[in-house]
């Protein structure tokens, strides 16, 4: 064993490698992405790693590997689990042979997600055991335990970190590479009565799962990570209890003070819930405060246990308004909740005296990078459709940021790939609207293609705009089928977006460089007026990956200070001089994309060179 400085996601990857994982698949999504990347980076050579086309594909690949007896891992964020839920729900009934871990990263806040869904709730729905780590160290150790449990029970096990565990670094004690397990899988053994799902199998499997989980609930009461402890207060038997989990358990640790009299239950297996341990926790208590993020899972379980066992214990938490019902917990929010529950005075952290008035601070939402080709694409479509009734459906990726002023080019955004179908639905109601659906290259492959087939087959009238920057930018530049690179380091045949579209049956598929503004605007105008489903592919590399060739600069003599560039583009590299009002360019940010040069009415900007 040795200590390493690791991000929680890295620690879980090393935990999987140490446990002898043989096949790893996943789809990028914050905050889960670094798990699979770390497996690839530290691959001792015999582990197969892939970025799958989406979470459903990844889960099925991992399931197949586990059918064949390998230990397998699939990684995703919480909304990715929605995409993978179809195979997961059935796999729960079919089960696995090799250990299979489904790593799903939840995102309280949410910080980088569409929803605040709770995978603990999903696990109960899918009837699959789930482990909920509190620290990177525990997350590392849980990976090995999850594989063991999965193999023993013959079903996938979910490991569910949250953002603060995923994206926190810590000193973690991990196994040396020489001690990593190496396993020889048995291979797939044909047995239709086991691997082919039919109602008759499902009848048997469901009954077996219910019996297994009832038994498991007893057993998990003895699992060392489900803990019961008492603070060192004056009372021998406290009447108050706190039930918590995950990262919130660390906030509770810090918020409790010497002299507090409280019993603390930490639940690491929210499903199956450790009822026996919960009963021991509840014995003699009058009141319990449940400190949880996302759903009140423990809170509902304790209410259930009280009801089933006839205990009169008041359970407080989200359902009673004692803990915030949504959003991320913080040390401060948990301290305040405990202050109220324990009827103690808040800790003195406030400054003395009258604090000075806080000035109005500038808003700083995330924005498209300076030189981002998506800015040019949105601007071209905006210009081409000026004065016309149009709908701009967005999708998931960096380009969702096209919603911000001054571009303001995202009318809808729902989930991966949805924009293409939303556009069709709106035009069924408003046929006189010019409908556009913007989709990134990775999203196109992940879940956009079926929407295009739907549109083409059902005779929709819409323009598909593929924003192809040849990477999965938002999550940190992962390869995808259009990039011609795999996570095993192979250079492979790229899947051509244009050829996919032509094969579906589209007859108009035009590719244009969005940074060539006139050509881009002209193409959009022409293509959008054709009937049926047609596509524009805007192709220009992500500026974070490409090295700028030159930078633009402003000729102050020529600049008249109209600020058209600033007002229309919203590029972070364009910073007007507060004294003169003339445009100026922050050389540290400019990539020389030339978009501002092309719209300057006095041709005052020059020097860029587009990629």
């Amino acid at each position, binding site marked *: 064993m040795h*200590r390493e*400085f690791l*991000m929680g996601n890295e620690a879980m990857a090393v935990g999987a490698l140490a446990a002898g994982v043989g096949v790893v698949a996943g789809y990028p999504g*914050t*905050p889960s992405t670094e798990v699979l990347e770390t497996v690839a980076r530290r691959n001792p050579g015999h582990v197969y790693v892939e970025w799958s086309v989406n979470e459903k594909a990844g889960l099925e690949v991992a399931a197949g590997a586990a059918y064949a007896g390998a230990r397998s891992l699939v990684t995703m964020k919480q909304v990715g689990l929605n995409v993978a839920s179809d195979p997961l729900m059935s796999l729960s009934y079919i089960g696995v042979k090799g250990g299979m871990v489904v790593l799903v990263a939840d995102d309280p806040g949410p*910080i*980088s997600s569409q929803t605040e869904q709770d995978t603990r709730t999903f696990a109960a729905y899918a009837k699959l055991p789930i482990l909920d780590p509190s*620290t990177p160290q525990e997350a590392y150790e849980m990976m090995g335990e999850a594989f063991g449990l999965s193999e023993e029970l013959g079903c996938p096990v979910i490991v569910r970190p949250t953002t*603060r565990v995923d*994206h*926190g*670094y*810590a*000193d973690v004690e991990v196994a040396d590479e020489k001690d990593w397990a190496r396993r020889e899988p048995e291979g797939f053994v044909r047995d239709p009565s086991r691997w082919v799902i039919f109602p008759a199998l499902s009848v048997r499997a469901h009954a077996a799962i219910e019996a297994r989980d009832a038994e498991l609930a007893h057993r998990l009461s003895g699992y060392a990570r489900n803990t019961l402890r008492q603070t060192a207060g004056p009372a021998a038997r406290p009447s108050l209890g706190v039930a918590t989990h995950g*990262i919130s358990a*660390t*906030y509770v*640790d*810090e918020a409790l003070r010497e002299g507090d009299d409280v019993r603390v239950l930490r639940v690491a297996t929210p499903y199956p819930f450790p009822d026996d341990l919960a009963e021991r926790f509840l014995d003699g208590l009058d009141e319990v405060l449940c400190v949880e993020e996302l759903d009140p899972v423990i809170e509902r379980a304790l209410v259930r246990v009280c009801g089933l066992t006839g205990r009169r214990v008041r359970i407080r938490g989200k359902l009673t308004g004692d803990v915030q019902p949504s959003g991320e917990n*913080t*040390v*401060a929010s948990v*301290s305040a909740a405990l202050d109220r529950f324990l009827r103690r005075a808040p800790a003195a*952290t*406030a*400054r*003395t005296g009258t*604090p*000075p*008035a*806080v*000035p*109005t*601070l*500038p*808003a*700083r*939402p*995330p*924005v*498209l*990078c300076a030189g981002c080709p998506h800015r040019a694409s949105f601007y071209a479509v905006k210009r081409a459709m000026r004065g016309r009734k149009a709908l701009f459906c967005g999708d998931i990726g*960096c380009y969702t*940021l096209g919603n*911000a*002023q*001054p571009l303001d080019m995202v009318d809808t955004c729902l989930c991966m790939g949805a924009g293409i179908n939303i556009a069709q639905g709106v035009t069924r109601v408003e046929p006189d609207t010019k409908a556009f659906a913007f989709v990134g290259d990775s999203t196109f492959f992940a879940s956009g293609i079926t929407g295009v087939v739907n549109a083409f087959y059902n005779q929709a009238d819409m323009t598909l705009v593929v924003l192809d920057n040849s990477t999965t930018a*938002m*999550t940190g530049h992962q390869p995808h089928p259009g990039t011609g690179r795999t996570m095993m380091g192979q250079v492979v045949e790229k899947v051509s977006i244009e050829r996919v579209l032509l094969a579906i049956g589209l007859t108009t598929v035009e590719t244009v460089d969005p940074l060539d503004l006139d050509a881009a605007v002209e193409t959009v105008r022409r293509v959008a007026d054709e009937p049926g489903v047609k596509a524009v592919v805007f192709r220009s590399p992500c500026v974070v990956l490409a090295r700028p060739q030159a930078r633009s600069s402003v000729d102050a003599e020529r600049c008249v200070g109209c*600020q058209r560039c*600033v*007002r229309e583009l*919203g*590029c*972070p590299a*364009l*910073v*007007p001089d507060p004294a003169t009002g003339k445009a100026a360019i922050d050389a*540290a940010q400019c990539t020389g994309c030339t978009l501002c040069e092309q719209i300057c009415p006095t041709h005052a900007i020059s020097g860029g060179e587009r990629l």
Partner: protein
Amino acid sequence: MSEKNLAVSPSAPQGGVSVVLAGVGGQGIVLASKLLARAAMGRGLHVRTAETIGMAQRGGSVTSHVRIGDGASSPLVGAGRADALVALEPAEAARQLPFLRPGGVLVTSDAPVVPVSAMTGGPAYDLPAIMGYLRASVAPDRLVVVDAAAAEGTLGTARALNVVLLGAAVSVGALGPIGREDLLTAVRASVPERFRELDERALDLGSAATAKE
């Protein structure tokens, strides 16, 4: 050691320190946090951090929390509990100031990064008001303002501002048990070869900047 040694006050956790790093996505906050954490690990200290990774890295407000020492259970620093706030941007210093404990040290750059929103209808960037607020909120002997333009001039790039600020923080004793040598070792261990010399210079420049005040 500079003359202006703001030794951490006795209310700081024994042997440990909590630091909040603040700035704008792209300024290198995550790297600064890693350097600080590695420096702590190099001293054999327990460390936990919380990073902002994801959409906010595209020019949004970014913070890293670094907790060093055995008392650190949570990776997040509580409100009013940071021993030091190291800000690469003044408006972000003001935004995260509630994390700083009474008597804690604020080390901030004086160079604004004006967001697009301030030029397209959002709240304006009022630098004098923000600097005035910081000076009114933090006692002069607890405040270090780093001249970012001078640092950029000396180093020839704005990229190493994160390390300059860490150098300034360490030179006034704001990083608790972490010393300059610990940071230097961390830089050597974690920064790619081609940036190493630049970051070493940046670290020294940060220390020198505070000595001058």
